[in-house]
């Protein structure tokens, strides 16, 4: 079941002094969509990125698209295809790697699947202004 909506996360980190900028490139399989960070309905499960190890973390989420299913009076906003999530934060002195998760609720062509989390990690190396 999980393989149906398995997503691929490629994290890349840029480090500038004590600041990190991590870009998660996420590929959602064809025929799969996930909820955006701010779903159209508050009861739906939002996509959430976590990053452990950084302080003062902020996440920039990709903008959703409106999925056209022919509904007359309902809107479904979704994330699909290739996405970028941008994480920024301050690096504590003793941290050399950041790990986190991407929590999401997917739907495939014939079914909606329970929420799940895919984990990711990336080493931190000085890459900007070095």
């Amino acid at each position, binding site marked *: *079941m999980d393989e149906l909506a398995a997503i691929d996360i490629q994290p890349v980190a840029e480090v500038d002094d004590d600041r990190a900028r991590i870009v998660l490139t996420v590929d959602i399989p064809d025929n799969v969509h996930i909820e955006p960070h701010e*779903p159209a*309905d508050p009861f739906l499960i939002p996509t959430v990125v976590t990053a452990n190890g950084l302080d003062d973390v902020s996440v920039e989420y990709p903008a959703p698209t409106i999925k056209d299913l022919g*509904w007359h009076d*309902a809107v479904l906003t979704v994330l699909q295809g290739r996405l970028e999530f941008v994480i920024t934060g301050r690096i504590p002195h003793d941290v050399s790697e950041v790990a986190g998760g991407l929590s999401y609720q997917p739907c495939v062509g014939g079914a*909606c699947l*329970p929420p799940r989390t895919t984990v990711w990690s990336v080493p931190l190396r000085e890459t900007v202004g070095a």
Partner: protein
Amino acid sequence: MQATALPTYTIGDTVEDFVLPDVDGNPVRFSDVTGKWTLVYFTTTWCPYCTAEAPYLESELVAGFADAGLELVVIDVKEPAAVARMLPDRFGWKSPFLVDLDGAVSERFAPKKEGLAPEVAIINAHLVLDENRVVRFAEYLNMERFDVHGVAVKAAIEELIGEGHRG
């Protein structure tokens, strides 16, 4: 009882009676809440299609057949009652709302979909039963022709009730 060893209900099968709790933990016998016609609907709180359809399910789709004796029974699949109760609370459903925490009852209704667990394949399914609890219609989630107003279900019920009247 091992539900996995039992066959899935298909059109023409008689649904065996069962007991599930409501959101307050009170046991509800299925046969006590079915009617002349019964729409059995499977849902979860996290299903976006279910949430989109929910405002119209009872007040529009089922209410439109009240004179024909259509009852609604909602079954929440594999969620604790404390979570599941958000649905009737939010949408004001008055119909029986049953909590199938382990999914064993729902599994009997689930279609066979390759790669999908029964408790997933059954979500957003609509089954129409007659007064003898015989499955007369089944509609499973199809995103390409999904409609919040349940157009296909409504048409099927109209046809079934018409048959009933002729019979």
